[in-house]
């Protein structure tokens, strides 16, 4: 068993930051990202004797990570609310009228509100610069599904972007 895990520590050292960034950008929450990476690495470790023989162990780990991030997003959000209620005024911050003038801020907020699967597709395409086929492999879906999730995500962001570029008086 020890021999089978000899290179697992190297895998963690080499890829934990990449996984953490992917988790953070997909889940959009730092504490949740850390939880996700931890859970992901536990799962990878359990299957490491097989995973280490794969051509792309990192792609496999990313796939587990994104599945965790997208499949369990609703349940984790519920638990997080129970454990850590938002501070007073947190809800109001999202509609700060000053922030609304800033396209960048609005895009960030729009990204946060995207369905996790769409955000994951955007992260893989525009942060990791994967092709649709490569992203599909990570997401465990067809390239067409990646294309459609990317397209829908971009469309939503474009709406926000176009809106914020208009004169403020036309937004109301």
């Amino acid at each position, binding site marked *: *068993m020890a021999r089978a*895990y000899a290179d*697992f520590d190297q895998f*963690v*050292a080499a890829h*934990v*930051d990449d996984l*953490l*960034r992917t988790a*953070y*950008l997909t889940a959009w929450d*730092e*504490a949740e*990202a*850390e*939880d996700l*990476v*931890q*859970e992901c*690495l*536990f799962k*990878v*470790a*359990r299957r*490491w004797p097989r995973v280490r023989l794969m051509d792309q162990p990192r792609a496999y780990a990313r796939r587990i990570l994104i599945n965790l991030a997208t499949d369990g997003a609703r*349940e984790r959000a519920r*638990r997080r609310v129970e*454990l850590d209620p938002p501070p007073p005024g947190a809800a109001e911050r999202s509609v700060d009228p000053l922030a609304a003038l800033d*396209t*960048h801020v609005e*895009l*960030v907020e729009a*990204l946060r509100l995207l369905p996790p699967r769409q955000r994951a597709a*955007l*992260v893989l395409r*525009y*942060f990791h610069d994967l092709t649709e086929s490569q992203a599909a492999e990570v997401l465990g879906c067809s390239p067409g599904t990646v294309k459609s999730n990317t397209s829908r995500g*971009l469309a939503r*962001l*474009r709406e926000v*972007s*176009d809106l914020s570029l208009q004169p403020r008086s036309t937004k109301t």
Partner: protein
Amino acid sequence: MSDLLEQNLRDIFSERATQIDPAASARLRGIDYRPRRRRRPALPALGALGVSATAAAVVAVATLASSAAPAFAGWSPTPTRPAAGQLAAAEQACSANRGTPVLTDTRGPYTASIYADATSSHLCLEGGSLSIASSNSGASQSDVPPGQIQLAGSGMKNSAGQALTLVDGRIGAGVTSVTIDRSDGSSIQATVSGGWYLAWWPGTAHATTADVTTTTGTATEHFPSAPQGPPPAGCPTGSHCSSGYSFGSARPGSTQNTMGSSRSQ
């Protein structure tokens, strides 16, 4: 427009990726993710170490490493907020896959979780060198009168002298908090959640009374006496071995005292 949007998107992702706390990476690197090998002792021997408020232990696995020093570093007499990743790590170590626990009690780096349905329960206590898991069948919440709690506990000690005592059980309707008074005169705040309470502490001091608070006031209930004297024999120094006892009852009013010891290696 699309190119500009895509460039904005790349910039946002890149900028945000730099905001991650470097300590998170360090924490993740410091975890041992390798699967643990668990040795399952003979069922009759550790039967007494099940979730203490229940009558029949189905499976109990306990590991209290003898090499850890100091024992239970970071433990807290009052429940603490879980650190980032702590609950997920406990769930993983527990290999529970039983859904959401009805109760989670965190005291420093230690996490106790109870998974329960109407007729059975599963307890995990993880953290540091500590790893305890047990499954039981027992009383349902309807067995516990309103405003009362099941009074039960268990204790264990390994060959290195590290010991812990744990009390837990179902609560009756209306119970909002439980404080455990111990034989050494100190008190422990229990976690109350999902129809259960739980508290545990290092050492052999046993629970004497429980101050049970409801919306109408606080009442004191008395625990049955814990077995006195040294822990059971059969635990040679240097072996990975634990011994234990349980006390209490499946239903308030009746008493069950059992003792047992087990050697896992």
